[in-house]
């Protein structure tokens, strides 16, 4: 400050005061802006932010309904739900995914496959903030370790879910089918609302057919979560409606017996209760453990199953299409008698071969040298091929097709058996369409003994046998016996479509049944060994299906042919003759002869059902009563 001048302190003070006033005005106006901003946020837009805040903290979670249980006819549990703990991640909340996965890898054993599947799901389209499972079926130790390190793992949760469990594993896999994770195609088919909390869907069998019934209705809960997605409390809950429990006609003991009888071999057994069409046993051996498929089978295990020569994944009972061979003869006998192609008394001379015209091709009888003079009954009992060649030619393919159609061949005649194939019932039109050839008389000859183009599944054979046992009246094969809740079985099952077979002379049924009884009990019956010593009368028919055809007149020695090339042994039958309670179809692949291998298997099934497991006529699932908890 230069000398000689004096500061005008009063002026400086006034200057400061003016400036201070300006600042005060600035302060007041800026504070007003803040207050106005607060007013805008807290009063004017309060509703918007309240909604945002609630949306932040309250999440609607869907609650998967527990899947309905499956029982056999005696109340034995076939499919239940078991709590399984899995570790899931919410990608939006995890932060550094690589780091989180590395950390989880240290805490639990996470396989390459788990990681790969997880990454795949990560890239798929999904709902935001949806938890993606990384590994299933955690052990107690792993759950504990996760709990300890929980604070270091935002967005990582241990989730408990009910997962399908099949306590009888292999026994029921083919009959029940199984559930598995919902895949992309299924995702487009299902109702996204009802399946919001569901991870599993029926993939095959009963699980697939009754998916709607078993699934139930989704529930909801409003939960309060923190910013890391951790559920803190449930605010409101609407419980899911559990899926309906169902009861099958199946008898687990019969199913187990069927598996035991076929143990070590490949084959199928179908047992039907003729009066109801209920499937008592539906066995395809070898089976597989359906539990493997529920949470996702490993590639390795799947390859082992799918590449096995025994084809355990192949459901022979529903999808194995075999030439029915001689097991078709009872149905053909019905056709021959009713169409007038033959009579009960007509006898023929069987020289051991059949020719359409002299010097033409010779169709051999299975018995070298032939059966001599035989009538229809003897031809069934001894399985004379020549009689049926002649009868078939007499009927013609159209008549045969007409009758066999009524027995359910060439179609899936089942009500609720998912995945059943329809076999092949040849006709002129079919051959023209598929092979672009006319129907030759020789084709008819082959068809006369169930060979040639004709194919049928064990289930179809059992069904046709059951129709004969019922003397022409139809009961379509079915699995469902009872359902909980307020719906009746009739509401749930598809409509029955087959009409009873009416014959010119209803007595024809008794004649054919007696002929089948002669197979078991006659002096020359092919299965008399299997029928011996029974306390009840049974009816049946043996058969063999050629795995490869032999040239005309070629010698046949089963011993020399490798086991895999041996004929399939087949048998159809029912018991007791007068009041049939069980009809059975048996096929043992490469089993050799129907009489030696397949018939004793059927006999064991008859004995078990008629003698050991005498039926108690009581339903375990009170059908249509709305009562469902009393037996639990």
């Amino acid at each position: 400050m230069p000398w000689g001048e004096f500061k005008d302190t009063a002026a400086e003070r006034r200057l400061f005061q003016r400036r201070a006033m300006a600042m005060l005005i600035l302060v007041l106006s800026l504070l007003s802006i803040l207050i106005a901003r607060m007013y805008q946020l807290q009063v004017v837009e309060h509703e918007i932010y309240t909604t945002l805040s609630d949306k932040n903290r309250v999440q609607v979670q869907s609650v998967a309904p527990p899947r309905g249980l499956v029982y056999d006819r005696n109340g034995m549990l076939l499919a239940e739900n078991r709590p399984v703990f899995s570790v899931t991640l919410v990608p939006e909340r995890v932060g550094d995914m690589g780091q989180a996965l590395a950390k989880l890898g240290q805490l639990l054993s996470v396989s390459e496959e788990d990681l790969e599947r997880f990454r795949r799901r990560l890239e798929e389209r999904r709902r935001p903030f949806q938890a993606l499972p990384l590994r299933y079926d955690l052990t107690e130790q792993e759950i504990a370790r996760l709990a300890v390190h929980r604070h270091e793992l935002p967005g990582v949760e241990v989730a408990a879910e009910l997962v399908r469990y099949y306590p009888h594993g292999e026994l029921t896999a083919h009959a029940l089918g199984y559930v598995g994770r919902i895949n992309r195609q299924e995702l487009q088919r299902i109702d996204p609302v009802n399946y919001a909390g569901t991870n599993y869907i029926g993939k095959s069998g009963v699980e697939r057919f009754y998916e709607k019934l078993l699934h139930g209705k989704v529930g909801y809960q409003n939960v309060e979560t923190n910013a890391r997605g951790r559920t803190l409390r449930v605010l409101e809950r609407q419980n899911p409606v559990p899926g309906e429990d169902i009861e099958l006609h199946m008898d687990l003991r019969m199913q187990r017996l069927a598996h035991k009888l076929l143990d070590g071999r490949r084959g199928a057994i179908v047992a039907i209760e003729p009066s109801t069409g209920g499937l008592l046993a539906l066995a395809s051996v070898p089976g597989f453990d359906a539990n493997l498929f529920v949470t996702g089978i490993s590639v390795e295990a799947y390859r082992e199953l799918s590449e096995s020569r025994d084809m355990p994944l192949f459901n022979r009972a529903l999808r194995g299409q075999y030439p029915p061979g001689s097991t078709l003869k009872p149905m053909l006998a019905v056709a021959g008698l009713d169409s007038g192609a033959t009579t009960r008394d007509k006898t023929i001379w069987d020289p051991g071969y059949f020719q359409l015209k002299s010097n033409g091709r010779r169709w051999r009888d299975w018995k070298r040298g032939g059966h001599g003079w035989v009538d229809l009954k003897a031809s069934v009992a001894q399985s004379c091929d020549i009689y049926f060649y002649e009868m078939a030619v007499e009927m013609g393919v159209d008549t045969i097709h007409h009758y066999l159609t009524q027995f359910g061949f060439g179609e899936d005649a089942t009500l609720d058996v998912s995945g059943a194939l329809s076999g092949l019932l040849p006709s002129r039109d079919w051959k023209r369409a598929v092979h672009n050839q006319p129907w030759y008389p020789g084709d008819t000859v082959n068809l006369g003994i169930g060979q040639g183009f004709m194919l049928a599944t064990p289930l179809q054979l059992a069904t046709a046998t059951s129709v004969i046992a019922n003397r022409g009246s139809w009961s379509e094969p079915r699995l469902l016996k009872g359902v909980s809740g307020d719906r009746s079985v009739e509401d749930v099952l598809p409509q029955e479509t087959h009409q009873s077979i009416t014959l010119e002379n209803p007595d024809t049924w008794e004649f054919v049944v007696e002929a089948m009884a002669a197979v078991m009990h006659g002096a020359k019956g092919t299965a008399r060994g299997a029928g011996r010593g029974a306390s009840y009368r049974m009816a049946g028919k043996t058969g063999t299906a050629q795995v490869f055809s032999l040239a005309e007149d070629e010698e046949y020695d089963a011993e020399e042919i490798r086991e895999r090339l041996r004929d399939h042994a087949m048998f159809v039958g029912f018991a007791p003759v007068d009041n049939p309670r069980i009809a059975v179809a048996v096929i043992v692949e490469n089993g050799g002869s129907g009489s030696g291998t397949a018939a004793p298997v059927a006999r064991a099934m008859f004995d078990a059902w008629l003698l050991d497991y005498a039926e108690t006529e009581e339903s375990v699932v009170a059908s249509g009563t709305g009562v469902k908890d009393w037996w639990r």
Partner: protein
Amino acid sequence: MAVSELFDQPENESLSGPGRRFWSVLHIDPILLFLLVILVAGGLVVLYSGADQNMAVVKAQGIRMGVALIVMLVFAQLDPAVFRRWAPWLYAAGVLALAAVLLFGAGAKGAQRWLALPGLPRFQPSELMKLVVPMMAAWYLSRRFLPPRLRYVAVSLLIVLLPMAMIILQPDLGTSLLVGASGIFVIFFAGMSWKLISAFFGLVSVSAPLMWFFVMQDYQKQRVLTLLDPQSDPLGAGWNIIQSKTAIGSGGLDGKGWLQGTQSHLEFLPESHTDFIVAVLAEEFGFIGMVCLLGLYLLIILRCLYIAALAQDSFSRLLAGALTMTFFIYIFVNVGMVSGLLPVVGVPLPLISYGGTSSVTLMAAFGVLMSIHTHRRMISA
């Protein structure tokens, strides 16, 4: 002039009276002390909620506030002449310390702010500059005729800009803005002409784009972009603003109640006990709570401006006025950023946010104000 009459009190009047003697001996301004204690106590209550009922945090903050109050009382004992004499030396030491920080400072979150000298506790020289820069500017300008000539304004601007630039380089935008503001306010109070002020703002608006391209760091640009459109990155940079606005807005007129704020307690609100604590208060005590808080701040500012107006010499006036306005800038920037009006810069809510350094500096400033107010001498008119 009606405006100036508000401050135009007889200089000796407030020095008399029986009650005044007691406080004058202790060099305490009871009104300011009372307002500050209410603010600090209320702040601890909000902090208890913002820190998710963590008593340890509240205790630590309580101790810090106690220390800060003692610092304030110590500063109040010193004569303003002491500050004036020491100002150039403090300024020189401060600039040296800032240079040291740039050369070998300790970092946190990608910015070097701390200086760890052997034998001394870690401290932020930039924080001290909030006091030293206005002191220096006031020292320089109070020696000139006021309003100052253009070249003195230029020199004092340099005095302010040097440390400001050094702090920006750390980089610490928030503190540098506060340091700069504290110095600029001195120049403004000294009587910088309105023409210059308008020219200054013109310069700022022109240089803003240049700052954007040459000075601002990526994270700072991101903050500005986020302010303009928080929804552009709702889970990343926009998260803080969306969540704090949601917290404030959902508080409504009277709030969700103490400890009942879902945004903060469910961890949606980030930094809920430090920079964003005002959102906790707004959520739990609503619009009414915010009006009370801002009202309390206004009372403190009014009291401080009153003290400044009564100050007896230019140095004290300029310093008191600038410190007061710096305090206000804290409030405006913090509440403005939490409510989405300003970009997110690291400025705490004064005397409420958890954290020691700024509280001590602020209390020291109030100590200076008390010193100015209680060291006045009887002047014969």
